[in-house]
């Protein structure tokens, strides 16, 4: 206990007395922490952007007007049994008409034209969403192969295939870019922090030799540096988080323009503690790890 309290005392003392060295280490760590936070937010925004695109992709199967509702519903059930399918919605002819009317409520010409028809011109359809956008081709093939030709009027996949494929390519690129960027920038942030702490310890290497001569055991030498690492971590996590708050406030409306479903501010507000925890874990983790690794080479003689 005495040892631990002395180690903590030395760590805090060294942190305070190192002055500008602590300040510069913390500034570098703040930058690294901002990159790390940026990555978390980038991933969240990216995911909802991808989700929002994916939700817009679907295919619809329109049935000829003479096909009975029962057989459409049985096709629906068989589709629902496919592992690739996430959701199938049945839209009856009447519902299609209602939907159409409410969509064009204020357009008199269309309403009038509809009123002049004595029968419902719209077809019943199944609206299919896949779990993975890559599967739409498979689902479309399935519909083709089920001998349903005489019942199906059209499948929208054929006409939208190019758009869907482009969207899929876009989604894949987004995902890969996200992963690459995350791995690369995290690595960068960790390396920069590690080397900063290593330099700070290097500038103290003669002091380490002196401590050994006086009979300090390794834990007595290493401990205070680890404590310093923790202090660097905690302080830079908190400062970088405080810097992040106005940045999120500023960016949120812009992101909202691109992805209407996404509110960065409310995401941030809802997960403020979680984000702070990640941030602390990242900074303190990197701080402790860097100090412990960097000091090792001075403890061998």
């Amino acid at each position, binding site marked *: 206990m*005495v040892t631990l309290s002395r180690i903590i005392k030395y760590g805090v003392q060294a942190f305070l*007395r190192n002055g500008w060295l602590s300040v510069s280490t913390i500034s570098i760590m703040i930058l690294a922490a901002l990159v790390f936070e940026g990555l978390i937010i980038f991933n969240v925004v990216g995911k909802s952007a991808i989700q929002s695109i994916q939700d817009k992709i679907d295919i619809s199967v329109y049935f000829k007007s003479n096909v009975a509702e029962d057989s459409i519903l049985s096709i629906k059930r068989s589709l629902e049994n496919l592992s690739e399918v996430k959701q199938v919605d049945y839209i009856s002819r009447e519902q299609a008409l209602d939907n159409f009317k409410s969509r064009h409520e204020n357009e008199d010409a269309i309403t009038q034209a509809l009123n002049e028809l004595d029968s419902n011109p719209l077809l019943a359809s199944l609206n299919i969403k896949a779990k993975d956008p890559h599967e739409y081709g498979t689902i479309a093939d399935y519909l083709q192969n089920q001998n349903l030709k005489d019942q199906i009027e059209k499948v929208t996949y054929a006409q939208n295939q190019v758009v869907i494929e482009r969207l899929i390519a876009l989604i894949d690129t987004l995902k890969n870019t996200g992963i690459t960027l995350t791995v690369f920038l995290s690595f960068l942030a960790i390396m920069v922090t590690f080397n900063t702490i290593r330099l700070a310890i290097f500038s103290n290497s003669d002091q380490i030799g002196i*401590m050994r*001569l*006086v*009979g*300090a*055991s*390794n834990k007595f030498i290493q401990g205070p540096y680890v404590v310093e690492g923790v202090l660097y971590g905690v302080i830079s996590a908190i400062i970088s988080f405080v810097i992040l708050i106005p940045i999120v406030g500023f960016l949120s409306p812009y992101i909202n323009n691109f992805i209407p479903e996404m509110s960065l501010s409310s995401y941030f507000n809802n997960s403020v503690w979680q984000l702070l925890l990640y941030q602390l874990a990242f900074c303190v983790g990197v701080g402790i790890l860097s100090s412990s690794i960097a000091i090792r080479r001075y403890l061998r003689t």
Partner: protein
Amino acid sequence: MIIFQNVSKVYTDSLVALDKVNFKVQSGEFVSVVGKSGAGKSTVVRLLIGEEKPTKGQIFFGSYEVNKLKTNELPEFRRHVGVIFQDFRLLAKKTVFENVSFALEVSGRPQKEINEFVPQVLEMVGLKEKTKSFPTELSGGERQRVAIARAMINRPDLIIADEPTGNLDPLNTWEVIKILTKINELGSTVILATHDKEVINTLGQRVITLENGQVIKDEANGRFLIG
């Protein structure tokens, strides 16, 4: 008791620092190790505190066989030995008080003891008024006295001083030698490596003379005779 038994230290074929060195030092002795630069004085010091290992031979200090100590056994061993260097080797970011108390803290002594011992020792070396100063705020002589206070705070059986007066003016040199003599009178063995002729000749104690890594003279009341 300290025993150097057939100790050789070879860095490369052309650089033999010590060549079959033999000597014994009884506890309570004050022994000077003299010789020109490169004669092997500092190697003797480094081997004795376990900073380096001999190429051949054995070194004993009390119950320790120093050449066989493992890295993790060195800290405990070094608490029995106080070392003083020409360049003082103080912890720059710690005050005078903290530099001295550090040696006690690392050996786990209770705070009460530290608060009692450190001022006593600092008073003995004449630095009672400077406890809160940092090393950069002290003169060379004062820094060396801090180093001496640190070396003796653990009441070690052995004090090793490697050219302790090399960076000091004559006045401070005599201050340091006086303190070392006092420590010796209080019971610690003192080994002083130096090439200061006047110091040796005034001390009138045992002198081991090294030349090219070999002991060429070992006299009970020695004088400094080399160039």
